[in-house]
C-alpha cells in the first residue's frame, strides 16, 4: 500500500535561524528551501499528489504565484518539486483536479482536454479524471435509488462519469507511461459501486475514490466493501484525501493500492492537541501538544488587542521572550519543568485572556492547559527521535510559532508516520 503526500508548497528553509527568528542570509524562496523528501534523510512517502486547484490557473487562483505556476507548467512537477524519477524510482507523481476548490460551482471549471494538457505539462505518472464532489452519504439500509435523489446530486454523478469517459480517450495522447485514473463519486455505497463498475467497463485499471474526506470510517468501510465486491480483482484502488490514518488496516482489508493524505503534516499546526507524533515501543502512534509561543508583534489576536489598546506590546514581547527562554533552558536542563511552565503560562494567559469568562473558568482553563504542556515538557519527546528535524532543531520543533517550526514539526510527523506505515506493511505481508 503506497502513501502519496498531497503537496501544497510545503517546504522549509534549512538555514532558518531559530534564535533570531529569521531566514538564512540571502535565502531565495524555493531555490534554497527544501521539500520533505529533501530535508529528511529519506523520503517519507512513496509519491506526491499535486492538485490543479493548488497550482492554479486563470480559472482558479491557486497557492502558487503566477511565476511559479508558469514555471511548473514549463518544467513539470518532478523538476519543480525536485522529485526526479532517477532519485525516487517507482515513485508516483500523481495529479488531480482538487475538486474541493470548485465544490460550489455548478460544474467543474475543467474539461477532459485541458486536464490532460495539465498532466502532460506536469509530466505526471498518474492523473485523475475531472470529478465533481458529492457531499451526501446515505445511512446503511436507507440508500436512495437514482430516482430518489435530488437533481443536482444526480448531475454531479453524471458529470463525473461523463468526464471520465472523455478523459480516458484524451489521455491516450500522453502515451503508455501515463496511467489515467477514473474518479468515483457517489451518494451511497451502492451508487459508488455502480460508478466503479462503469469506470472499469470503460477500460480503467486504476480507480480513485473521491469525496471521502467528510465520511466517518464506518461509511468508508461500507463504500470500500461495496466497491470491492463488484470490481475485478486486478483493478487497483486509490483513496483520495484519506485523513483517518489510524485505520490503515481497513484499507489493507479492502485491497486499497494507494492513498493520499496531508494529515501528518497539517495536524502539526491545525490540530488543537495532536501536533507532534511519536511511536510507542508497541508500535502505536501517540501524540504531544506543541507549546504555543506566537510572535508577539505578528500574532493576529495580539495585534487586534494592541489596536484596541488592550495590550501593551512591550510587555507582550517581554513575556514572549521569557517563555521562549524558559522552554530552551528546560531543554538544556538548566531549569525544571515547573519553572518553564510558569514562563510559558504567563504568556499563554495574556494571549488567551477572555474578558467574558469568570475568574474560576479562567483558573480552570489555565490549569488544563498547564497539564497538557507539562506532559510535553516532562517527556522530552524531541530527544527520542533521530529525524533531522529533531536532531538539528531539538525543542524548537515542539514550539508552535511560525511556518519554519510548524512545517518542520509536520515533516517530523511524516517521518514517524512513514515508519509506522512501513512496519504495518511488514506485518501485513
Amino acid at each position, binding site marked *: 500500500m503506497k502513501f502519496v503526500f498531497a503537496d501544497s508548497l510545503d517546504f522549509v528553509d534549512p538555514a532558518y535561524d531559530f534564535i533570531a527568528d*529569521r531566514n538564512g542570509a*540571502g*535565502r*531565495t*524562496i*524555493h*531555490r534554497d528551501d527544501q521539500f520533505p523528501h529533501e530535508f529528511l534523510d529519506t523520503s517519507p512517502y512513496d509519491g506526491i499528489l499535486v492538485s490543479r486547484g493548488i497550482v*492554479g*490557473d*486563470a480559472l482558479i*487562483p491557486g497557492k502558487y*504565484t*503566477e*511565476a*511559479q*505556476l*508558469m*514555471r511548473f*507548467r*514549463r518544467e513539470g512537477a518532478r523538476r519543480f518539486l525536485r522529485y526526479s524519477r532517477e532519485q525516487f524510482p517507482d515513485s508516483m507523481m500523481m495529479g488531480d483536479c482538487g475538486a474541493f476548490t470548485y465544490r460550489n460551482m455548478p460544474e467543474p471549471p475543467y*474539461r477532459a482536454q*485541458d486536464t490532460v*494538457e495539465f498532466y502532460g*505539462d506536469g509530466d505526471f505518472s498518474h492523473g485523475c479524471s475531472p470529478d465533481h464532489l458529492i457531499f451526501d452519504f446515505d445511512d446503511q439500509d436507507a440508500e436512495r435509488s437514482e430516482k430518489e435523489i435530488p437533481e443536482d446530486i444526480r448531475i454531479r454523478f453524471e458529470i463525473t462519469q461523463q468526464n471520465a469517459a472523455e478523459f480516458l480517450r484524451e489521455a491516450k495522447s500522453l502515451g503508455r507511461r501515463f496511467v489515467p485514473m477514473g474518479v468515483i463519486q457517489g451518494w451511497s455505497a451502492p451508487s459508488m459501486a455502480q460508478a466503479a463498475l462503469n469506470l472499469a467497463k470503460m477500460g480503467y485499471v486504476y480507480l480513485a475514490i473521491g469525496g471521502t474526506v467528510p465520511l466517518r470510517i464506518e461509511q468508508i468501510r461500507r463504500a470500500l466493501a461495496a466497491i470491492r465486491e463488484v470490481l475485478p480483482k486486478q483493478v487497483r484502488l486509490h483513496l483520495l484525501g484519506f485523513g483517518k490514518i489510524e485505520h490503515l488496516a481497513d484499507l489493507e482489508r479492502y485491497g486499497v493500492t494507494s492513498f493520499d493524505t496531508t494529515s501528518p503534516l497539517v495536524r502539526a499546526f491545525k490540530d488543537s492537541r495532536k501536533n507532534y507524533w511519536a511511536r510507542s515501543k508497541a508500535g502505536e502512534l501517540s501524540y504531544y501538544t506543541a507549546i504555543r509561543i506566537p*510572535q508577539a*508583534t*505578528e500574532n493576529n489576536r495580539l*495585534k487586534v488587542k*494592541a*489596536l*484596541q*489598546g*488592550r495590550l501593551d*506590546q*512591550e510587555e507582550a514581547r517581554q513575556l514572549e521572550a521569557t517563555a521562549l527562554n524558559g522552554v530552551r533552558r528546560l531543554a538544556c536542563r538548566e531549569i525544571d519543568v515547573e519553572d518553564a511552565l510558569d514562563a510559558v503560562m504567563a504568556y499563554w494567559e495574556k494571549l488567551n485572556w477572555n474578558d467574558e469568562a469568570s475568574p474560576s473558568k479562567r483558573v480552570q482553563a489555565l490549569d488544563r492547559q498547564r497539564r497538557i504542556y507539562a506532559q510535553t515538557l516532562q517527556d522530552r519527546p524531541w530527544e527520542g527521535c533521530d529525524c533531522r528535524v529533531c536532531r538539528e532543531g531539538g525543542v524548537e520543533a515542539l514550539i508552535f510559532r511560525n511556518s519554519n517550526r510548524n512545517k518542520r514539526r509536520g515533516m517530523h510527523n511524516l517521518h514517524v508516520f512513514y515508519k509506522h506505515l512501513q512496519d504495518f506493511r511488514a506485518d501485513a505481508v
Partner: protein
Amino acid sequence: MSSPHILHFDVVAPRQSESLPVFTFAARARDVERFARIERAGRDDSGTLRGFQRPQIAGHIREIRDYLEKPGAILPNPIIVAFTHSASLESGPSHDGVEGRFGRLAIDVSNGAPGWIVDGQQRFTALRDLHGSDFEVLVSGFICDCLEELQKQFILINNTRPLPKALVYELLPQVSDLPPRMSNRSQAALMTEALNYREGSALRGMIKQQTNPKGIIRDTVIQRLLMNSISDGVLRLYADDDRLLLDRGVNFVSEFFHAVRHVFSEDWEDKTPKTSRLVHGAGIIAMGYVMETVHVLTGAEDRDAFARGLRHLKGRTAWSSGEWAFGDERRRWNGLQNVPADIRQLSLHLVQELRRAIPRNEEVS
C-alpha cells in the same frame, strides 16, 4: 544637586516658537527608554480615546534592526519626543552673542517616563532589540502645555507623504546593501534602467519612468517581467551576480524584444497600451513567459532564433483587433486587463499555443 530621578541633557535649542520650546540632543536607546514611552491609541473602559501611536510593525522593525547591525549603520533622522510636564528647559549661557541657542534640559522620571514618542517608535523598538548597544540616536523634543496640542503636533509630524514608488524604484539601482524585499526589485530596476537607456536595446526610450514620462511601457510592468524571470525563469542563472544580469541578462531580454518588434511590428510600432495589448501590462508580462518557453523549447538566445519561435504565434493573436479564443471563452482584444486572472489566462494560452506548434513544426523543418 542632581538627583537620580532627574535626567539632564545638554541640548541645542533653535529659536522657534515661544510657546512650544524645541530642542535636540543625543542619547543612547536605554536612556531614551527612561524618559520616553510609546502610548498607543486605544480606548479605556468608558470608550474614551487615549494615546495615538499605531502598533509595532514587525517586518519593518526587523529591517531596521538588520540594518543597524551593520558596522557602518547611521540613523540621522531623530526620534521625536513630546513632554507635557516633568520637563523643563533652561537657557544656557550665550555663545558668540546669540541668546538662547544652547540649553540644559531637566527631566523628572520619578513617576516613570513622562515623554511621549511622537515619531520613530519602530526605530526606537529596533534599537532596543540591539541589546547593550552604545549606539546613540538623535532626539528632538518639544514641550507643550496640553494633550490636545501634542496630538495636533503628532498629526502634523506624521502626515508626510511617502516618496512616489516610481521614484524610489528609479533610485534603487544607485543603492547597495538593501533589505531583501527591496533588493529583488533593485535588480529588476537596474536592468530596467539598462534596457531603457542602453544603445541597441530593443526597448530604448520606450519605458515610462519618473524621468522618462514619454515612455510607452510602464516601468513596473517591465520590472514584473524581470522579477518573474529572476525568481522562476532563465534569469535566475544570473540572479547572484548583478554584473551578469546587466550584461547577459539585459542582452537576452533585449534580443527577445527585438524579435517581438519584428514579428509583431504592426502591433508594436507607434502603438500605446490603449491601442495594442502587446505593449500593455498584460501583454508584456505574458510575453515574458513566452520568452521563457521559446528559450526552453528551442534554446533560442538571439533575435533570429526568438523570431523563428515567435512566428508560430503569428495569426493566433489579437493584440490590437479581433478576439482571443481561450478554450470555449472568447475575449475581445481590448477586453484584456492588467489583472492577475487575465494575465494568467493570456500567458497559459500563448504558452500552450507554442507547445502545440513548436515540436510539430520543428520536426518538419
